[in-house]
């Protein structure tokens, strides 16, 4: 068989039919883009998810299940069952196995976003992704009692600038009826986007949290007993309790021992969890969703293959004369079958290449928007092993489906007479 001839005929034939094939190629390109995109997104979302918190060895909170503790401390979902006494936190600080601690105090909200009360240790020790620290996009970390630092998404969606005065709400929820009107906060800084729930919260000092709750009882402000900002500046505050703490250990090997000790603490019922373990348990729970995506991916492949076969069969009907001519001048049935296979594979290769370009373009174009709007960090990266295999499967599958028209043409052209198109 003449491979060079088959290749050049296939190329000329594809080019000749480019107007029809452009549409097919577009369909194939879009479905391959979708296939690859879903796989890419799956990998990235999982990556993004497991990168929500890093370098934190233990999360310590009131006694509860590990998922609950993970959800309310890291993902700002749900509520704490109880608090940790400040004295207990002070004791933990004395523990020399613990390198650093970040206290966090939750409970209030700002227009649906969580208010996280913490201190400067959040800025120095908190890590996400591949060990990234928090960074200020504008302004500075809070210093005064009524200073607030906004997460990137909060600042973006509510259009906050440095110096804005904002009023926090008591309790969670988007529309709270009890606001801390007497103690407005001033935005002193805005965080860089992280693509994690950190973007979806505002950060105040533990002092600020205490100060705005003075004079409050059972969720209502008692008139005349709340502080004015001026009074607050003159006082010092000591919190009674915090919600949870992130901890980093000096020696990672001690993690389980410290965890066990905290869990068995008799002074106060506490739970310490390993964030990595809790995250993977949470991801397993969401595996249902991942499997659904995988199913959709499968259907996308099947759909595009059916489209491919349909087009090949349509082309076959159009090509009876051309095949009669090629047979008459001595082309073997194998050469003619090879034409189909080569054309189909070339088409798939073009579609795959276009899908790569299109996919990269879409990711580049949407990546900043996804991060800003949804806090989803989808960077452009080289394809991984699985994705390359998936992409390679497209021309391979095209080769397989091309065998269908190729074999039927091969069989037919063996039995047809000179100049016979088989259309009688």
């Amino acid at each position, binding site marked *: 068989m003449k491979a060079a001839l088959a290749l050049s005929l296939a190329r000329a034939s594809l080019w000749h039919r480019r107007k029809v094939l452009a549409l097919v190629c577009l369909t194939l390109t879009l479905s391959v883009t979708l296939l690859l995109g879903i796989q890419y997104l799956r990998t990235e979302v999982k990556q993004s998810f497991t990168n929500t918190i890093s370098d934190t060895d233990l999360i310590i909170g009131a006694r509860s299940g590990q998922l609950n503790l993970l959800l309310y401390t890291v993902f700002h979902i749900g509520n704490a069952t109880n608090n940790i006494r400040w004295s207990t936190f002070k004791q933990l600080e004395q523990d020399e196995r613990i390198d650093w601690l970040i206290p966090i105090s939750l409970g209030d909200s700002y227009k649906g976003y969580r208010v996280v009360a913490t201190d400067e240790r959040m800025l120095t020790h908190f890590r996400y992704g591949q060990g990234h620290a928090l960074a200020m996009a504008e302004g500075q970390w809070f210093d005064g009692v009524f200073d607030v630092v906004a997460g990137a998404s909060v600042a973006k969606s509510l259009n906050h600038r440095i110096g804005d005065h904002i009023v926090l709400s008591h309790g969670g929820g988007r529309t709270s009826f009890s606001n801390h009107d007497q103690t407005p906060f001033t935005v002193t800084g805005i965080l860089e986007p992280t693509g994690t729930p950190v973007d979806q919260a505002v950060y105040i000092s533990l002092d600020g949290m205490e100060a705005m709750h003075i004079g409050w009882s059972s969720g209502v402000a008692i008139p005349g007993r709340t502080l004015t900002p001026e009074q607050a500046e003159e006082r010092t505050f000591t919190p009674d309790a915090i919600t949870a703490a992130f901890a980093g250990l000096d020696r990672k090997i001690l993690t389980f021992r410290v965890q066990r000790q905290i869990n068995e603490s008799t002074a106060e019922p506490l739970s310490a969890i390993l964030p990595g373990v809790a995250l993977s348990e949470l991801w397993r729970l969401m595996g249902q969703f991942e499997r659904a995506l995988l199913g959709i991916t499968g259907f996308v492949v099947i759909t595009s293959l059916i489209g491919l076969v349909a087009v090949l069969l349509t082309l076959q009907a159009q090509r009876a004369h051309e095949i009669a001519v090629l047979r008459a001048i*001595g082309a073997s049935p194998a050469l003619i079958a090879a034409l189909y296979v080569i054309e189909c594979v070339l088409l798939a290769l073009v579609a795959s290449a276009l899908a790569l370009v299109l996919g990269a373009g879409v990711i580049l174009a949407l990546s900043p928007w996804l991060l800003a709007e949804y806090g989803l960090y989808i960077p452009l990266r080289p394809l991984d092993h699985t994705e390359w295999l998936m992409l390679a499967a497209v021309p391979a599958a095209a080769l397989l489906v091309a065998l269908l028209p190729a074999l039927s043409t091969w069989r037919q052209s063996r039995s047809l007479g000179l*100049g016979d198109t088989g259309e009688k």
Partner: protein
Amino acid sequence: MPSGSRTTAPALTVSDLHFRWSADQPSLSFPDIRLAAGEHLFIHGPSGSGKSTFLSLLAGMLSPESGTIHMLGNDIHKARAGDRDRFRADHIGVIFQQFNLVPYLTAETNVTLPCRLSDSRRDATHPNPMAEAHRLLTALTIPEDHWHRKVTELSIGQQQRVAAARALIGSPELVLADEPTSALDTDNRDRFLDLLLTLAEERNTSVLFVSHDRTLAPHFHHQIELDGGVR
């Protein structure tokens, strides 16, 4: 009964040829032929007389029920299907009534196509297939600016002449022509026939020309009748 009575070895010998499409259909029988190299044969046959079947048998694309076809000393139906395809590529040029050309190739690439399928026909061109194609296209009065065009942009008459050039390139021993002039008007038909036969003679190529139009017969050395052949 025509016979190549010259001293050269016959280009084609057909004897006692029978064909049956399927077991329940009548057997077709075809006249015996003995054609010397370079001689032209006119085969007259009305439609339905089995012309296409006869040419398919000669081209090695159908197998006879009985009888033999010797072409250039080879019994072509003793060969395997792949060898028959190669034999056709090497030794036979074909012209149909219409749809002769590969639509996505230019006129000149259509003409050189046999040289890409057959090494012997490529080697028979001087100095190369493209030069030979240009010479044939010029002889067949295809304007030079049409050579690089898609064949679908050519007139029917031009398409048939391009097909003739393709059949003649690389000087095959035999050209099978199946009603190649029936889509042409009288002027075009006569010009086509003249050019085809003249160029074939230059190359010592035998032309087997099948037509229902008996007025063409005088252009040929011999003529035979296909009578439907049902026995």
